[in-house]
């Protein structure tokens, strides 16, 4: 699609010819995920997590459709229907554990995918739209995961729903009516459970739609690469199939091995025992924590403990939590450095590995811990640093930093020979 030397699709059978004239779907797939898509020859393993996230989304959709065949979205029997899935349905335990752990694998893949983009500057021109659509996918995935966690109607489900919808109550004036609108009541109950089920089923298909846009937008400039240098000629690329399909297949195999270990030997490792207690609106669990993939954001929410001027601490926490992700929408314009890859940015590299990554790790750790000292103080410092990274450090770096010399081409970076001479 993107480069003039891309291989052209030629139907090999008469049926393929017939199909190509009527509905060129095979041509479309060939050009987007097949040999017709030339990808940079130097992509490293960090480029494998996009397709892996896509595959785990498919796992979630397949297992989710199956669970929906046996689940009952009614506050009286939802918990029992999940136990019915675990005990009575043929292989039901496997599908439920696959769905619960599959969400973690999906988020793990998506975080590595986002981290890759952050380090190698994949969000920079001309790939801003790919990045923006990716942030939309992430936001949709968060909403989907949250609502899915409510469905088993255990203690964590119920109190998670109460706390998260309670965030909206922090909005001045209209907060309480909004929370009541979202819940269809004053606390989570049947109305909330039913709408969460409906939306939990809908949103993954919206995610698929945005992923199609994400890939479409990707194929216009083509993939970024570890050097961040633009593709300059046919020698800089290899056809996506078989080179990257095979490479993605290899890491998929590895991921499935880890997935099987989690699924068959430690299925509840990432879960909360509390959620095997049926929802009780009269008793709150000792420590309400979301799933691990929300911990950093949860820590930011809890980092605000004092009112600032006329803004109550509750609203500050909510604003900060949403801003922590919304700031990503501005990232392509906050980081003005013309050099994409962090590999050629000595200062950025240090701030990334010794600033941002430890900061998010601290936030993650504090988000999973009890809301007490020293974790509150640690969250506050890390929150401050998190925003400083995006709003102060990145914009300033682009003017102070002296980047290392870039290779003339991808081929030169890989082979040491100039593009024209390399074979």
């Amino acid at each position, binding site marked *: 699609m993107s480069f003039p030397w891309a291989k052209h699709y030629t139907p090999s059978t008469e049926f393929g010819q017939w199909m190509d004239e009527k509905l060129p779907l095979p041509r479309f797939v060939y050009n987007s995920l097949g040999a017709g898509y030339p990808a940079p020859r130097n992509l490293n393993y960090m480029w494998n997590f996009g397709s892996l996230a896509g595959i785990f989304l498919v796992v979630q959709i397949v297992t989710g459709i199956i669970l929906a065949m046996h689940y009952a979205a009614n506050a009286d029997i939802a918990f029992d229907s999940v136990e019915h899935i675990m005990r009575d*349905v043929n*292989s039901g335990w496997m599908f439920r554990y696959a769905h619960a752990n599959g969400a973690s694998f999906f988020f793990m893949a998506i975080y590595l995918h986002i981290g890759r983009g952050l380090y190698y500057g994949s969000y920079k021109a001309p790939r801003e739209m790919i990045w923006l659509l990716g942030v939309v996918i992430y936001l949709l995935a968060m909403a989907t995961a949250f609502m899915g966690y409510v469905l088993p109607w255990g203690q964590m489900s119920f109190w998670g729903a109460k706390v998260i919808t309670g965030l909206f109550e922090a909005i001045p004036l209209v907060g309480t009516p909004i929370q009541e609108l979202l819940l269809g009541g004053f606390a989570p109950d049947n109305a909330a459970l039913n709408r969460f089920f409906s939306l939990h089923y809908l949103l993954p298909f919206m995610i698929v739609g945005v992923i199609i846009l994400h890939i479409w937008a990707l194929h216009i400039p083509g993939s970024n690469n570890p050097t961040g240098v633009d593709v300059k000629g046919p020698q800089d690329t290899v056809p996506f199939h078989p080179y990257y399909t095979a490479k993605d*297949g290899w890491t998929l195999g590895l991921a499935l091995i880890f997935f099987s270990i989690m699924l068959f030997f430690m299925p509840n490792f990432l879960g909360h025992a509390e959620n095997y207690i049926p929802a009780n609106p009269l008793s709150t669990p000792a420590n309400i924590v979301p799933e691990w993939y929300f911990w950093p954001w949860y820590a930011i929410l809890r980092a605000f403990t004092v009112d600032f001027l006329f803004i109550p601490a509750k609203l500050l926490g909510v604003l900060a939590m949403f801003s922590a992700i919304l700031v990503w929408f501005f990232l392509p314009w906050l980081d003005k450095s013309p050099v994409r890859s962090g590999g050629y940015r000595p200062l950025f590299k240090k701030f990334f590995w010794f600033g941002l990554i430890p900061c998010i790790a601290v936030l993650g750790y504090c988000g999973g811990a009890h809301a007490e000292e020293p974790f509150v103080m640690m969250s506050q410092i890390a929150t401050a640093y998190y925003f400083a990274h995006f709003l102060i450090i990145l914009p300033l770096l682009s003017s102070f930093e002296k980047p290392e010399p870039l290779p003339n081409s991808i081929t030169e970076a890989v082979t040491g020979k100039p593009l024209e001479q390399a074979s």
Partner: protein
Amino acid sequence: MATVETAESAVSEEGGVRRRDFINIAAVSFAGAGAVATVFPLVNQMNPSADVLALASIEVDISAIEEGQSIKTSWRKQPIFIRNLTAPEIAEANAVSLDELRDPETLADRTTAGKENWLITLGVCTHLGCVPLGAAQGEVKGEYGGYFCPCHGSHYDTAARIRKGPAPTNLVVPEHEFLSDTVVKIG
């Protein structure tokens, strides 16, 4: 290019079969076998679950059913007819020649030896699954005095055998066993 195959790695000594061909076939076969193994539970989950199968047998007290009466009960969410046949009904059923029947079976084939008066059948027409009339007081019993399905007009005789209409076979006799003179276990 970094990924170009060298002559040594690509071609084996004999037959022109490349080592890479073997790797390709092995990898794709392994993935294919894995995919097939995964599809089995994906489909099997739609089969009846353990709680459904746990309802697979019921015990019915038949002591209150007078001669000539029948009751409807439910087994695996399907209606069951339990009928206490009268002597004339038994005689009528036994008088029919097997040649006349679409689905030839004697009353003895369809009942327990020594308890030929107890006719236990599914109340599900073998045509398209409606519940035939004739089990409850005052319902039409059809031209042959057994059951009549109002949906598409199938007539069953006193041994619940199909005699007229579109149904292909007799009403199904479920597996059953008399635990005593008054209790029958179905399923």
